[in-house]
């Protein structure tokens, strides 16, 4: 039922766009038409809260969204950097707790996905549904489960995609030969045993969803497949495989960096260990592989991305609008601009500093100029990237958010703190 609603909405939105850009967008609560949104947004300031840890991404946002918003729509973009998206979630909750409803909040737009999204959605703290009502929603493949499901749960039009990412690894081609790279968790285990002290992974937990992802993929490989993990959270399935996963990770421990007494807490620590030669691998989420980190001087220029043969989790990230956003119209215009093909073509190229891949389905773009921009971008992913076809072959979707919570808590308990495994 939900799916059909989504499809209908998508069709409606596509149809609306086909007729004219000023056609009525019926899916935007509080507005009667897109024109009204654009009109109302003029002169507004959009407060866009996002993880601010990368100056390259910050600069990208200011340049590629801030300028056109100002010049074409008369909207001022105030990018608000946060150390962790959960801070914003907390802030919206605080506002609701204190009774700041209506449009008396402070946050207009949030870069979000997964658990943070569901926290807000479940507490009814998001504006919407709107994501399929903005004109450029027609370019989004809303039939793709990786898009209409975020961590296994329906998005329902409360968030709109920005970009895509896929977990894979980075090694230093100056230090290692491509043929010696592990291509599965089993091979990685052997590699760790043969090269003690040279591997570590991000501690699964707050601020390190990549580490959680690394462990999830081990679940897939050990259990022999990804299909059974799709869908609702399955407690029995989790309990069946979890002890083996923890045992594997515990077995690795003596040969990990610092004997597994501690683990890097986030992407930057993992990158630095790799760059300084303390560990042999780091992780990336970008289709251009190691290129963004190379450009920033964070990792050596000889770094190269590589993928396992299977079970590399890929997903989309989104933007959402809180229920009490003071400038909803400007937030909608911004969300729409994000999906414009020329902006999307900039975001995938490592030269411009953003991290991630396409949010739109490029095959839906028809305008010749924009098609040309997309083709040019495809040729410009840099040489530190893994072959896109190999990545596509290993791609699997992320799973229900409950798994993440369980994995993080249990990993900390059994692997980090070393409590005895349940029999």
């Amino acid at each position: 039922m939900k799916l059909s609603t989504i499809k209908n909405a998508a069709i409606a939105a596509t149809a609306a766009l086909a007729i004219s850009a000023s056609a009525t967008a019926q899916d935007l609560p509080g507005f009667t038409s897109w024109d009204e949104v654009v009109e109302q947004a003029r002169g507004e300031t959009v407060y866009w809260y996002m993880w601010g840890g990368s100056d390259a991404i910050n600069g990208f946002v200011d340049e590629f969204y801030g300028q056109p918003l100002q010049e074409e729509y008369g909207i001022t973009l105030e990018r608000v950097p946060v150390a962790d998206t959960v801070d914003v979630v907390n802030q919206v909750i605080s506002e609701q707790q204190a009774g700041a409803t209506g449009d008396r909040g402070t946050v207009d737009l949030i870069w979000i996905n997964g658990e943070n999204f569901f926290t807000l959605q479940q507490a009814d703290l998001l504006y919407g549904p709107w994501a399929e009502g903005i004109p450029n929603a027609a370019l989004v493949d809303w039939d793709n489960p990786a898009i209409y499901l975020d961590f296994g749960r329906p998005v329902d039009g409360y968030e709109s995609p920005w970009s895509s990412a896929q977990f894979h690894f980075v090694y230093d081609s100056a230090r290692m030969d491509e043929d010696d790279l592990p291509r599965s968790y089993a091979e990685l285990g052997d590699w760790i045993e043969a090269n003690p002290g040279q591997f570590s992974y991000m501690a699964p937990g707050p601020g390190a969803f990549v580490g959680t992802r690394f462990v999830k993929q081990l679940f897939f490989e050990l259990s022999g497949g990804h299909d059974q993990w799709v869908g609702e959270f399955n407690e029995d399935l989790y309990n069946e495989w979890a002890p083996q996963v923890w045992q594997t990770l515990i077995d690795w421990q003596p040969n990990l960096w610092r004997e597994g007494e501690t683990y890097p807490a986030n992407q930057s620590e993992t990158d630095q260990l790799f760059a300084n030669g303390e560990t042999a691998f780091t992780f990336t989420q970008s289709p251009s592989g190691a290129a963004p980190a190379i450009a920033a001087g964070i990792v050596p220029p000889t770094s190269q991305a590589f993928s396992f043969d299977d079970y590399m989790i890929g997903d989309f990230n989104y933007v959402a609008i809180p229920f009490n956003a003071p400038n909803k119209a400007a937030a909608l215009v911004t969300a729409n601009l994000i999906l414009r093909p020329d902006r999307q073509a900039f975001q995938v190229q490592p030269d411009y500093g953003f991290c991630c891949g396409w949010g739109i389905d490029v095959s839906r773009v028809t305008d010749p100029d924009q098609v040309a921009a997309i083709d040019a971008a495809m040729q410009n992913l840099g040489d530190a990237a893994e072959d896109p076809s190999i990545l596509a072959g290993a791609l699997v979707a992320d799973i229900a958010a409950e798994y993440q919570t369980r994995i993080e808590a249990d990993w900390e308990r059994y692997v980090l703190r070393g409590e005895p495994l349940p029999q």
Partner: protein
Amino acid sequence: MTDVTVKELAPADRSAGKRATGKVVFYATVIFMCVMLVLPVIAFFVNAFAFRWFYPQLIPDEWSLQAWQRLGLLPPPGQFSIENLFAQWASVPDVVRALGLSLWIGFLVTGVSIVIGMPAARALGMYSFRGKRLVEFIIITPTIVPPIAFSLGLNINFIRWDLALEAAGINLGLSGSVLGVSIVHLVPVMPYVVLTLSGVFANYNADFEAQARTLGAGPFRTFWHVTFPAILPGLFVACLFAFLVSWSQYLLTFLIGQGRVITLPILLFSAAGSGNNAVIAALSLIFIAPAVLILLVSSRYLSGESGAVGGFGRV
């Protein structure tokens, strides 16, 4: 080797030799101490201008201004010209904005805290009255109770007060605003100001004021010509503490500013997760610079006999 030399020396020379060795040990200790203490600052300087400075390089192989370019303080590589530099600065990069905001809040908080705190310090330093111990306890508590204990409650309180005021037709907007953040900074700042100044007033002779007034000086002239010069060194130290406490405040700004009041600590904390050591180091240098400048100006007051620091003896 040294032993042999010492044995051969005559008694008088021996003590001279001992003194010389003592001097060497002394200087070595002092130099070691100085180097260790400034090591972080040295590390910031090298990192801020290094590129791909990975282990085991001790001296960077590549130097670069990329951190400063990334922060928007210098034009992009290869485009350096005075016009571009001006254009770059005219667009007010985040760092410049944060620097300005931090300075503005710091000065505002310092000024207000001195104006409010001076009478209180005078009362505590010069008079004895009933309940003085209680008043001292109230003023000192914020330095003892960790900020986290009250800032979590304050976070929600501010939003509630805003709404209550809004209902009464007053749109103050405390939470998420510079005003709110500045007011909140007063909490950790006030105790330092009052403690420091009360130490000054404890050693202060009010007779001069009385004389000035007998000679016909009004209260303002009395303050300006008599009180002010007498307490100036202590005042300086109080201002220094007030500014520094506000300047380095992260948690309160973060929780009350709702992420919108982006001062330097907020910017630095958020950059600390980027992994780009050069950018982090450059930001740190910018964060350090004004504070060190102020120290340069005021250091003689700090080690002087102003009695100002002695205020802490009253905890």
